[in-house]
């Protein structure tokens, strides 16, 4: 569900290192998950998604892992670059009242140190 009242947790990594951003979701019936990247002053942008019938999906420099047993989602960014500095949100798809709605996590602020 949403935790919009909380300040964002932060993660700082050295340029070139791998980053791992974690997310716990609440609804065991959620069937679809998305990671978004939001740069300052802009709308969130899609990074990668995964359906509940998968436990891993890879994109360009990014990997999403899904552990349905513990309701945990993670985003791995390989060889982190300064341009990766942003806030990252996970979202879970939950069907309610006739509309498919995405529910967003609190977000994590990633800072890449040159």
């Amino acid at each position, binding site marked *: 569900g*949403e*935790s*919009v*009242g*909380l*300040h*964002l947790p932060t993660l700082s990594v050295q340029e070139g290192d791998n980053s791992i951003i974690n997310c716990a979701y609440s609804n065991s019936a959620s069937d*679809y998950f*998305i990671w*978004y990247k939001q740069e300052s*002053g*802009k*709308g*969130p*942008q*899609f990074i990668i*998604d995964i359906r509940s019938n998968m436990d891993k999906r890879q994109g360009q420099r990014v990997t999403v892992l899904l552990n349905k047993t513990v309701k945990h989602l993670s985003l791995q960014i390989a060889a982190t670059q300064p341009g990766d500095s942003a806030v990252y*949100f996970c*979202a879970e*798809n939950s069907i309610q*009242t*006739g*509309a*498919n*709605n*995405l*529910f*967003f*996590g*609190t*977000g994590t602020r990633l800072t890449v140190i040159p």
Partner: protein
Amino acid sequence: SQTIHQWPATLVQPVGSPLSLECTVEGTSNPNLYWYRQAAGRGLQLLFYSIGIDQISSEVPQNLSASRPQDRQFILSSKKLLLSDSGFYLCAWRPGYGEQFFGPGTRLTVL
């Protein structure tokens, strides 16, 4: 291809003044439409969603309202703004399932 527009990009309004933010989507039909608010350094709060013309669901009670007069137009309004209405307002659309696409946002400052 589909695009989503929001305007204005920034807005400064006095307390008690009215508000109208507009969002339009191009290149798709019958999308689900959403309004979110984001306070500085915080997450996304879903305000309203719509699955069709004149079909609006409110997620959070507040002094804001939403309308969908056309299939691809979503409007966020207020009759009297409060200081607490300041924030970054994001419109989004979704084809019913799958990826959700966000607009560029409107930065609202209420003084």
